[in-house]
C-alpha cells in the first residue's frame, strides 16, 4: 500500500500530439492518499479510464511520472506495480471453476495453497458465491461473472491499490447496493487505496471519502461530497452533481450585486471587478418560489413530483432555471418570482469559480 502521486502527467493516444486538444488527459498533478477511497466521476470520454489504465500500468503516459510512495513506477509493468483492477465488463476464465477464478491471481503469485483456500472462501462469502465455487464459470449470468471479476480484484491482500472501472454497470440494481456496501466495508477493514470510476453520482458520493470530478481530460475538482455540493469549483461540477444540477445564469457582477439582464441579485460576498464570461450559480435546493416584486421574474413551465420533493422547471430570459420545493407544497397561482439564498450563490468566470473578497454578512442572518 502506498500513496500514489501523479506528477506532471499527461497522455495522448496520438504519436505526435500537437495542441491541447490532442491530449486525452491534460496536465495532472495530484496526490492520492494512502488508504483512502476515491471516486473518479465524469461523463463518458472524459479520460477517467485512461487515467485508471495509466495508474495500473496498462498504459504508459506520454508525459510525466507516477510514484507509489517514493518509487517511480512510470515504466514498470502491471506485475511490478501489484495493482488490482476490475473492468466495466466481466472478464472470467471460462474453462476454470468459480473457485479457480478467484484463486488465479494468488496462484500466479505463488501463494501457499492453504492460504489460497481460506482466502477464496472468504471472498466467495463476500460476493455470495460459496455455493457455486466448484461450478465452471462458463455459462454464468453477466452479473454473476462480474461478481467473480470483483472477487478476483479483491482477493489479493497485498495490492498497492484496487481500481474499479465502472464495475457495477451490468449488475442488478438491488445487488449494486449490496456490493457497494461490501466494497466500503472491505475498504474500512483492510484500508486499501481504492479508486472507483463511475459516471453515476450517487455511486460516487456513497462510495468515496473524496470525489474527483473529471471533465474533458482535466481534474476540475477533488473534494468531499459536501465540498462538491456547496462550492463547485467549475460549472461542470455544478451541473453534473445534483439532480437537477446547479442553475447557471449569465450575469455581470459588481461588488456584492449581480446584474442578470435588468434585474439585480444579492450575493453573499464582495467580488473584485471580473472580466470574461461571468455566470452566477445556485443549486435548486436554495431557490424559493415567491410572488410580488422581489426576485427574478420567471415563466413556470412545469412541476415534477418526484416523491420526496417537487422540481419546479421555469425559464428566466429563455434559459432554464430549476427549483426544488418541499413535498406537497401548493403552488400559488400568482407565483412568478424566484429568490436565491445569497450566501449559496457561487460566481464563475469562464467556468471557474471565483472566491469572494470577504463575506458581506454571516449566512444565518441572510438565510430567510
Amino acid at each position, binding site marked *: 500500500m502506498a500513496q500514489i502521486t501523479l506528477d506532471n502527467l499527461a497522455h495522448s493516444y496520438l504519436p505526435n500530439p500537437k495542441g491541447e486538444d490532442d491530449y486525452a488527459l491534460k496536465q495532472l498533478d495530484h496526490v492520492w492518499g494512502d488508504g483512502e477511497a476515491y471516486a473518479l466521476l465524469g461523463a463518458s470520454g472524459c479520460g477517467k479510464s485512461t487515467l485508471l489504465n495509466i495508474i495500473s500500468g496498462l498504459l504508459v503516459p506520454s508525459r510525466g511520472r507516477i510514484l507509489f510512495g517514493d518509487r517511480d513506477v512510470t515504466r514498470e509493468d502491471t506485475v511490478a506495480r501489484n495493482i488490482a483492477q476490475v473492468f*466495466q465488463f466481466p*472478464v472470467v476464465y471460462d474453462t476454470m471453476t468459480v473457485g479457480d477464478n478467484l484463486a*488465479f*491471481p494468488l496462484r*500466479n503469485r505463488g501463494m501457499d495453497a492453504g492460504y489460497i483456500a481460506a482466502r477464496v472462501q472468504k471472498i466467495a462469502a463476500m460476493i455470495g458465491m460459496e455455493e457455486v465455487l466448484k461450478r465452471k464459470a*462458463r455459462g454464468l449470468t453477466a452479473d454473476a461473472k462480474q461478481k467473480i471479476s470483483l472477487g478476483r480484484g479483491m482477493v489479493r491482500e497485498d495490492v498497492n491499490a484496487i481500481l474499479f472501472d465502472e464495475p457495477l454497470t451490468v449488475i442488478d440494481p438491488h445487488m449494486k447496493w449490496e456490493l457497494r456496501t461490501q466494497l466500503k466495508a472491505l475498504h474500512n477493514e483492510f484500508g486499501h487505496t481504492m479508486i472507483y470510476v463511475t459516471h453515476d453520482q450517487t455511486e460516487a458520493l456513497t462510495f468515496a471519502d473524496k470525489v474527483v470530478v473529471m471533465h474533458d481530460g482535466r481534474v476540475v475538482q477533488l473534494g468531499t461530497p459536501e465540498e462538491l455540493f456547496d462550492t463547485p469549483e467549475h460549472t461542470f461540477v455544478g451541473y453534473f452533481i445534483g439532480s437537477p444540477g446547479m442553475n447557471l445564469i449569465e450575469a455581470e457582477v459588481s461588488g456584492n450585486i449581480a446584474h442578470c439582464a435588468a434585474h439585480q441579485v444579492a450575493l453573499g460576498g464582495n467580488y473584485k471587478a471580473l472580466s470574461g464570461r461571468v455566470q452566477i450559480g445556485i443549486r435548486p435546493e436554495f431557490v424559493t418560489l415567491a410572488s410580488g416584486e422581489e426576485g427574478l421574474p420567471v415563466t413556470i413551465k412545469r412541476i415534477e413530483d418526484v416523491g420526496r420533493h417537487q422540481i419546479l422547471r421555469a425559464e428566466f430570459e429563455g434559459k432554464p432555471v430549476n427549483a426544488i420545493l418541499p413535498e406537497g407544497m401548493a403552488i400559488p397561482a400568482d407565483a412568478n418570482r424566484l429568490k436565491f439564498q445569497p450566501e449559496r450563490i457561487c460566481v464563475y468566470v469562464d467556468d471557474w469559480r471565483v472566491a469572494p473578497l470577504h463575506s458581506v454578512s454571516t449566512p444565518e442572518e441572510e438565510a430567510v
Partner: protein
Amino acid sequence: MDKIQNNKAWFLVLPVLVLVAFSAVIPLMTVVNYSVQDTFGNNVFFWEGLGWFQEVLTSKQVHSAFGRQLMFSGLILAIQIPLGILIALSMPKKGFWASVCLVLMALPLLIPWNVVGTIWQILGRADIGLLGYTLDALNINFNYSRNPVHAWIIVVTMDVWHWTSLVALLAYAGLQSIPQAYYQAAKIDQASRWKVFRYIELPKMQGVLLIAILLRFIDSFMIYTEPFVVTGGGPGTATSFLSIDLVKMALGQFDLGPAAAFSIMYFLVILLVSWVFYTVMTNLDKAEGR
C-alpha cells in the same frame, strides 16, 4: 382462416427434387447398385448381396490403406494444428503488416492441388529440384521414389505447406475476436504468457479450432491428387491412401463391385466423423449458452 388442402402444392418442390436427384441421389444409387452386383461384362449383372462388402472388410490391402490413411491424417493434424496456432499467435494484430501476412498466408490455399503436387514433385528431385539437389549436395541421400520414409516426408511436408495457412487463418480470426479487456485482466492478475494462452486464447479459439480440425481431417482423409502426382502411391504401396487404392480398384482394375462397396464404406466413415464433430460442437454451443 381456413386451411386449404391442395396437394398440387407438392409440385412446387419438384424442381429441387429433380436437382438433388441428378446431383446426388442418382449417382449415389448407381454406386449402391454396383456394390451389390457382379458383372462379367456386356452389361450383364448378377446379384451378389453383401459379398463385396465382406470382401472389402476382410481385405488386407484395404486394411493397410486404411491404416496409412489414419496415420497420414493424424500426422498432418498433429503438425498443422499446433503450427497454425503458433503462426496465428505471432502474426501482427493490425496495421500494414497484418494485411501483408494475411495475403501471404492465403497464397498456398489458392494453388490447385495438382499444381502443388507438381511443384513438390520437382522440388524434391535430386537432379533438377532445389530441395533434392541441396540435400544431395549436403550428402543426404534423399530419394522419395525409392525410400518409403522419404516419400512420407515429402507428402506430409507438402500437405503442411499447402494447408497450415487455413488453420492459421482460422485461429487468427479466433484470436482477433478476443476483447482487449481479457488481456488487460490477465495482466492485472499477473498471469504468465502460457497461462494467457491456456486460459484465454485457447478456450476462445475452441470453436474455430474444431472447425479447422474437422476441415483438415475430412480433406486429408480424402486426399488424392497431391500424393498421386508426387509418388503415385509408391514406393510400393507406401503412400497409397484410401482414395488412391479406390481409384486403382475402380478404374485400373475395373472391379466395379468391390470399388462401389469400398466407396460406400469410405463415405460412411467420413459421415460418421462429421457427425461426431457436429455433435461435439453443438453441445459446446449449448454449454456456452447455459
